[in-house]
């Protein structure tokens, strides 16, 4: 087995594992009655989610950094001097992104005057799901951003680009669909803004990971006649 193929298989497995972990986290948050219950301690639970997402992203990034065969695509050759500036810019974007997501959430119907803290936490979660992978895996490469979002995802060769595409789209969609049960009168404690949206975003993210764990090897196989799957 070539190094490249091994990498693809490993990243697919990593995606699958983290998808199950995040899915499990979402279910635990809803079912649990104790300290980590999202109904009782909404804000700490969302912080926990943000932490989990960040850890997962960093894990994939570290994995990518350590295990990726260098010969495949050597575009990430950046000089050290400009790296500090890049990191600063990334942090700036990460700082601004929650405010943008907050605004979008309000435009989509979140309360404006009440529960601002909850909305902001939700926005932080979304930016950790959407912006953080972008910055980690694609950097400040605007062309890559546009390529991922506007062009068809099938044209993305890089497995990480696909990963970013699926997770970000799915978590945004999940967060939006999470709002559907709020107006229903099932009288469940989680039918409160933003709990169901947080759960929806988490599940969406998990679905995105799952999808990419399926799509990345399939794409690679189609391209390289790779027979492992």
């Amino acid at each position, binding site marked *: 087995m070539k190094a490249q193929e091994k990498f693809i298989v490993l990243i697919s497995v990593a995606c699958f594992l983290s998808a199950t972990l995040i899915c499990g986290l979402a279910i635990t948050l809803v079912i649990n009655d104790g300290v980590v219950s999202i109904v009782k301690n909404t804000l700490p639970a969302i912080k926990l989610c943000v932490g989990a997402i960040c850890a997962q992203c960093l894990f994939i990034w570290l994995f990518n950094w350590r295990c990726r065969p260098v010969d495949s695509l050597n575009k990430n050759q950046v000089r050290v001097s400009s790296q500090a500036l890049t990191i600063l810019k990334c942090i700036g974007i990460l700082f601004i992104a929650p405010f943008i997501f907050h605004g*979008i959430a*309000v*435009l*989509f*119907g979140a309360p404006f005057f009440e529960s601002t803290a909850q909305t902001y936490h939700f926005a932080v979660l979304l930016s950790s799901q959407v912006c953080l992978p972008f910055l980690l895996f694609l950097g400040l490469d605007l062309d890559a951003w*546009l390529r991922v*979002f*506007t062009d068809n995802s099938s044209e993305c060769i890089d497995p990480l680009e696909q990963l970013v595409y699926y997770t970000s789209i799915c978590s945004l969609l999940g967060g*939006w669909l999470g*709002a*559907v049960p*709020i*107006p*229903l*009168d*099932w009288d469940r404690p989680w039918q409160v803004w933003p709990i169901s949206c947080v759960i929806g975003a988490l599940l969406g993210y998990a679905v995105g990971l799952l999808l990419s764990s399926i799509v990345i090897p399939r794409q690679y196989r189609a391209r390289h006649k790779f027979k492992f799957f």
Partner: protein
Amino acid sequence: MFGIKLFALMCITFSLTLMGALVFLKGFLLSRTVVEQASMCNEDFVLKADDHSGHGIKGCWMHGRFKRAIIIVIDALKYDFMVYNESLHSAEYANSPFKNNLKVIHDLAKRHPAHSLAFKFIADPPTTTLQRLKGLTTGSLPTFVDAGANFQSAEITEDNIIDQMRRQNKNIIFLGDDTWMSLFPNRFYKHYEFPSFDVKDLHTVDNGILDHFYEEIQRPDWDIAIAHFLGVDHCGHRYGPSNDAMRNKLLQMNDVIRNVTHQMHQDTILFVMGDHGMTRTGDHGGDSSDELEAGLFIYSPTQITSSEQTEVAAISQIDFVPTISLLLGLPIPFSNLGMVIPELFSHCPWWDTDTHEVRRVYHRVKALRLNVLQINRYLQAYDEIASDLPDNILKDLQTKIRQAEDELKQVVPDLVSGGHPERILKQFQNIEKIYKLYAHTAKETCQGKKTGGTQKVVRKQKSTKFDVMHFVGNPITKSGMMAVSICLVLRSAHMFYVCREEQSSCKDSFFHAPLSTVDKAFANQRYVFSLVCLAMMVYFVRQWLKYYGNMTGSEAGVITMRYAPPIAAVCIGLYWALQAVPESALEALSPWQQAVLAQAVYMVVILALSVIFIWPLLVYNHPTSLSPGAAILNQADLTSVIPNLYNKLKVQLSSSPKDQTPPVVYGLGTVYCASLVTFVSLVSLVLALLLGDGVAPSLALATVSLYLCLEMYSAIVAITHCSNEHGSQDEDYDTDSDTGPLFSGLVMLNLLSSTFFYATGHQATIPSIRFESAYTGFYGNFTNMILPGFLIWLNTFAGPVFFVLASPLLITWPALKGVMRWTTQDSEKRQQQKTWQGDFKLFNNGIKFRKDMFQLCCGIITISGLKLFSAGCAAALHRRHLMVWKIFAPRLVYEVAFFLTTSVCVMLTYLFILRVDKALNKFVDSLPSNSRDKRV
């Protein structure tokens, strides 16, 4: 002719769908079958022993207890108004104007505890006056469909208490609400009726009654006196319960009750009742507990009950009918389902009930027995005609009655022989229990509310809004700003949403309160805000027309558009200001003075619309003798130079170069759009007037969102064209490429119209109909109900009417290639704009244009038909649901109305476009011959 043929096809489609919907509705909203039988004085189940001949007043089924009755109906007398709380502080009293005003009831209850009774008087929904009057006189339950008939009240044919009184030769005098006169024509011995429909008028009815009431009840020639006061209800509609006007009204009612009780004789009984309650905002019609809980107070100078009333019980409104029947010695009306009030039958002055507990119970049981036998006979008669009562319950009820009869037969001989008073008492109480249970079961069975789960889905409008958002949020990269602004507009439209009654924690925004009741500081701000929005609407349209050169020249249409909207807007503003004036000052004006401003708006808009229909073109044919350069120099207004230039170029290109100077036509590039925009903006002025000053700003939001969505849609159309055919898309209308209206556009329009149905302050429930909108511009009573019905209809469906009338813009707007298009295209493509024709190019291919219009109209009808279908499915699925009459049935009815509105508006706007096309045809014919070859 092709257009007319398509129109006929559209009509057939529409009427087929509508017929299907109506058939479904007829089956779904089953109306109660009326049993046209009347109770007789001599019925076989009446025991002769009941008639205590020798004492009391001879009666039919039971001896009469009273000879005369005074019934005072105070419209919308909520139970809370009747309660007197002694511990209420004076400060609290000043803050809540509806509390502690009916002191006389409290005083009487304190002074003569055995002479008076007070009850919570629970109405059956719908809580509209006509329905309640039917219930209060026939004792039967209303049906859902009847609620719509409030404007066209018809005579009651069912057996009722009034007819029973007449049959026993009782003289009835009636004063007050003229609804009674339409329900019971030619039944009253004397009547003084007053118009009821004008809710702004607080005093005419009440003062009219009081002019005659005291005088009449002092005469000896009547047996029953009915007075129906409307002031409290009108005050609630106008100002809500928490206004000082309500205190004055209730204090007036207090005086009325006091004066009447002073004048009463010993043989008279007084009923003071409300026909329904009111919500916190003073409205009624639904089935929230605020609306259902009316008050009832019974008083007589003689003793009426054996023991003092310890707590206030809740009784049903239909219980009034059997009670008053037996008290006056009348037969109970045939289709009554109510149960006699037992407290009133435990005391009989001629029968020693004070000393014997057994006799008290026996007296009660006798009344209950007659009552139950009557209900039983009604159920049997009903079951023969209509078979929608469950058989097993009926059988169950029959056995109950037989059991009670048997027991009674055993007990009565014991009573006569006078043995074992405890055992007899127990048996009687047992029988009483059976009778009461019977009456309850019968009523519940007829209500049909015994089945169904408890899940309900509330706040439907949220999801619609999200759908719009989702649609708009399509990833079109360069229209992000536009998407954000559409989101912003739709989000701010949320301010105008009203709450459903189920949403207990929800509070209406202050846009929905009448201006005269809003806090002074906010009132001015709100008024100015509304004015600014209105002015923006007019100004925006005007600027748009000016920009495309449609406001040049002195054609009739142009002149109209120049002057009509500002005049109408000023009148609307003044009319709103007049509404804010306090009531006391308003009464100094005569009715026509209050209405004249609104009527002026109607006149101006109708005039303008007819002018637009006769001369629909907003174009100006510049005299051809001038050279093009001179034409530009003459035009001082720079904004119209652009269209001017474009049009000139267009005509130059189209004519062969060897010809003389081509005609210069202003505004030809937007000929269809301009006419439509004019049409819609004129209609929207009327809609703004009807919506009132509070909600009218949402129409401004609707205008903005329509503009933004159309721009966005044009961009999408342009992109679709670009990807479909590379390059030469400017000629696509000549080459028969198949590009009708896109499906996304139709969906967008439909979602917008349903979003703005909610955003104009409506909900798909019966109580949220804004009946007061019928009085904008009309004062006093209406001779027919078509006009007020139409106005209420327009108010309710303001959003859909606005968007659907504007629907042909989906075809004409992309041809304009407006702001969005310029930004999406590369700079080199701007070169092609020299040949800009605007939507005039649609004219080149008349058949294609008509086909597209037809496709558009049918698409809109189909989508709203699909919505109707889903609503029908939901209603059919939930027909046994607990909430069916509260959520699903109103929703279905609204959806039918929505479909009707949409279809009619689509057809109107289609005809208008045909008219514009015809006029354009004529106009092009009148141009010099060299430009004519452009036309197919």
